[in-house]
């Protein structure tokens, strides 16, 4: 099985936010939640770069370590998913996540947190693949259809790569060697304890 990862080539990202929009549309993401976002570093300064970030589907995910109800699980493709039926909206995972992935819709009085929502790597949840119940809770399951996450698939500059970690690392490495520069595989060190060395 593949070890799925995201890699954002910051030297290609043009901050068009199409990945953000595509994600929201594909999964009917609740109001106020962005499963993916684009952060611009050194904004307006020389060397400005933008990075598209979502759940990185960490190895030994910190969210899973702190979840009091153990609602997280890792699929065979190494995608970190969670069960919204078990989730109690305590918020611990959002404090454990280095990437700000877990978010909560405000569903009840006093701004109480609802069930946590985050990037599913376009692979749904524990319900049967491509079922209506799965779609309502987690959004589309593109992986079950044999497709990669939509954010990366429709990226106009091919900055955002999704797929097996080794393959996308090779693609990125080749780019860096060809053009002579690269600002790094953002988040890889934090998520997987490794960097893409070129």
């Amino acid at each position: 099985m593949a070890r799925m990862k995201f890699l954002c080539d910051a030297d290609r990202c043009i901050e068009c936010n199409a990945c953000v929009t595509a994600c929201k549309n594909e999964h009917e993401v609740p109001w106020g939640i962005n499963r993916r976002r684009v952060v611009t570093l050194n904004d307006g300064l020389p060397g400005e770069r933008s990075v598209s970030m979502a759940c990185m589907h960490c190895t030994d995910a910190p969210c899973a370590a702190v979840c009091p109800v153990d609602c997280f699980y890792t699929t065979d493709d190494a995608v970190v998913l969670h069960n919204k039926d078990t989730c109690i909206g305590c918020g611990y995972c959002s404090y454990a996540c280095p990437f700000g992935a877990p978010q909560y819709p405000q569903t009840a009085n006093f701004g109480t947190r609802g069930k946590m929502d985050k990037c599913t790597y376009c692979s749904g949840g524990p319900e049967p693949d491509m079922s209506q119940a799965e779609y309502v809770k987690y959004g589309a399951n593109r992986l079950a259809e044999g497709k990669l996450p939509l954010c990366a698939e429709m990226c106009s500059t091919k900055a955002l790569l999704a797929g097996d970690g080794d393959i996308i690392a090779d693609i990125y490495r080749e780019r860096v060697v060809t053009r002579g520069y690269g600002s790094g595989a953002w988040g890889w060190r934090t998520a997987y304890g490794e960097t893409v060395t070129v």
Partner: protein
Amino acid sequence: MRYLSQFMIAIAVLVFMGQAAPVAVAQVNPTANSVTEDSMFEALTGDENAVAGRVSIPDRSAGNLIKPENKSWAAFQGGTVQTLSIIAVVGMVVLLALFYMIRGRIRVESGFSGRKILRFGAIDRFAHWTMAATFIILALTGLNLIVGSTVVLPIIGEGAFGTLTAFGKLAHNYLAWPFMVALVLVFILWVIDNIPNKLDLEWIKQGGGLLKKGVHPPAKKFNAGQKVIFWSVILGGAGLSFTGVMMLFPGMTATPADWQLYQMIHALIAAGLTAIIVAHIYIGSVGMEGAFDAMGTGEVDENWAKEHHGLWVDEVKAKSGKTSPISTPAE
């Protein structure tokens, strides 16, 4: 001649390239100032523990791109807190079981006299039991958040455990308020009698009379052991209340790092205080004959009072003649 001209051209080209090359490098290097993950990690300082930038969505906190520090809190919360909580609670239960096996139940040595003294009035008992009931639920639901997924979940399954914990979270959030009210009430009612004095040193020196039969160090209304319980509850409870309110309203904490700190303090105090309260429940029920009446009916047997709070009995008697607070049962 042909060779010469070719040689001259070659020289010219080489000279031209030699001059042009450095200029070209200086012009086309888009990465000279580009941010790299390495450089941003190096620039991280203690206060700003995030690689951050600008976002175009309303949620400003989404501008934090990577916060590697969060992983250390996760490791502490997912491992250390769990271990410490189990050690504190299970350790105390084991200690008490050993104590019970060695010392047995502490009896009223001179037997029950049948005469009762009023020790705690209705308000005292109301405050105590409000705090006790809420604390027990808070402790159980809190422990459930820490160790439930390893202890309870395998027994009742994920679905039932999720529902249970969701209700537990609600109970924890809302019962915290009556707990805090009772905490303030208890403080006001009993602080006068819980100020440490010289008698406490003597009480501690004699081990409180807990370890040997026939030893009864003098004590007023509260002995040194009870004062330790009182101040643990007051200070621990205040700490839990403050950190708890900060966690309940995350907007009040300055940064997520502050929230993590409050959470760690909350969990550690809770583990310690739960262990202390387990000991308090033991000595107030199974561990000592006649002790439960103080908070049950509010009236204790005179002989129990003389053995454990001799000076207090004298005070009560001196204050109100011989009859009033001491009632003899109708015969």
